[in-house]
């Protein structure tokens, strides 16, 4: 009895949260087109995001490229198919591994950062202070950050993809003596519009999710320093989960279009 009421309580909490987040999202889209546009703040947030996460994205991208190639090589060699390496690595990185790994890294870096920043602004009453001065904190703080994340994530993913491919090329160059030109010619030959386009669209949604969840968690942070930690933490957890859900949906949708 106790257990079941506990579960129903969790379900209720979960549904309430989903409802609140949906409302938050709709408010974002509504305020997005209201004047004034905070261009300066938007640029500052874009810069912050790029500055904070580009090194991380480059390092993880590079390592993923190296590891992927090193691990696949022996298997391909067994089948005498090493020459397929660039196409295979290219497709898997551009379609799936690059976007999802970059997004996960950014969820940890950007999502938690936004959650903690807005959370501490909430706790120290800075958001309240904006509100009583007749300013619109949602517009100034939330819309700029979500928009910045949405715009920056595709760029970061492209950087991550490029570095990963470069890492893969280095392995091929050392182990198989493949030239730069040859490697990348093969990569781009293998890639089609239907690989690149859905993958790029997907990354916008990844960015949107990272920004929205981070802002939502921070904006409605509970009182106390504990609350700030929890906001940052749950921003990362919820975002990571959402990234996989978005990824899954994106693959489903792409698949439907393929069949058409």
């Amino acid at each position, binding site marked *: 009895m106790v257990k079941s009421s506990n579960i129903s309580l969790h379900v209720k909490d979960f549904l309430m949260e989903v409802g609140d987040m949906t409302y938050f999202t709709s408010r974002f889209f509504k305020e997005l087109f209201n004047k004034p546009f905070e261009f300066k703040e938007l640029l500052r947030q874009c810069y912050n995001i790029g500055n904070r996460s580009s090194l991380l994205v480059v390092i993880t991208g590079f390592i993923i490229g190296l590891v992927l190639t090193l691990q696949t090589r022996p298997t391909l060699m067994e089948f005498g198919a090493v020459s397929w390496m660039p196409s295979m690595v290219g497709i898997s990185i551009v379609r799936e591994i690059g976007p999802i790994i970059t997004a996960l890294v950014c969820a940890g870096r950007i999502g938690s950062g936004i959650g903690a*920043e807005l959370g501490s*602004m909430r706790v*120290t*009453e*800075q958001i*309240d*202070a*904006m*509100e*009583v*001065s*007749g*300013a*619109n904190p949602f517009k100034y703080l939330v819309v700029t950050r979500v928009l910045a994340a949405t715009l920056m994530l595709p760029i970061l993913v492209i950087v991550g993809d490029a570095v990963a491919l470069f890492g893969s090329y280095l392995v091929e160059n050392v182990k198989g003596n493949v030239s730069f030109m040859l490697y990348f010619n093969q990569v781009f030959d293998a890639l089609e519009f239907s690989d690149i386009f859905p993958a790029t669209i997907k990354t916008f949604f990844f960015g949107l999710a990272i920004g929205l969840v981070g802002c939502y968690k921070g904006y409605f942070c509970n009182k106390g320093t504990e609350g700030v930690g929890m906001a940052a933490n749950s921003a990362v957890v919820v975002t990571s989960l959402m990234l996989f859900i978005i990824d899954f949906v994106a693959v489903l949708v792409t698949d439907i279009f393929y069949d058409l």
Partner: protein
Amino acid sequence: MMEQNHIEEPNVVLEVRDLHKSFGDNYVLNGFNMQLYQGENLVIMGKSGSGKSVMIKCLVGLMEADSGFISVMHNDITKLDHESLDILRREIGFLFQGSALYDSMTVRENLKFPMRWHTKKFGGEENQEKLVMEALENVGLEKAIELMPSELSGGMKRRIALARTLIMQPKIIIYDEPTSGLDPITAKEIVILMQKVQKQYNTSSLIITHDVDCARVIADRMVLLIDGVDYAVGTFAELSSSKDPKVKAFFKEEV
């Protein structure tokens, strides 16, 4: 409700009637009443945790009251939409207990921030810059203009926050413990500044404080918030000579 609106006195700028607010089982306000007249300094005293901050947050719509009537300059704030509320808020200055400076901005940007939305009232960049300098001079912190809030002491933060509140030239100012945690000299300076502002612009002030000295100097009238209601109302002299033990407890330094 309508009838009550009609008997509202014209020179009341802020009125609270039968305000209730609870957090779960924690009944904080249980029918609080208060009136603030044009040009007066009304001091609200109450023990820590008695709901003073909650009450003023309800006043400006930062918190929603469970029930009760709140009117700010003859507007029932519970019935206002978001835009009208924002317009009304421009006439109200609010000094937060914890200063609430924007810690990603310099002192200058902090002071300019509230003006960005009201360029009609405050004019262009040069005029705003002039107002910023003026406000900083008022609180004696011109030198801090380029500093970040993290580089300021607690007392400096409070004074900058005060400057940020005053720069909007509000008609009503709500001070949440303006002098707590300050040394007696700085506290006195702040009180003098509050008086100066009140005289200069004929603002009406709602002042929350524990500081009996501050209350004695500045209060035209006082309200004691005890057990969630307006337990006693009167001038400083009236209340400090009261026989009621609950009221007396606030003034025991006096005896």
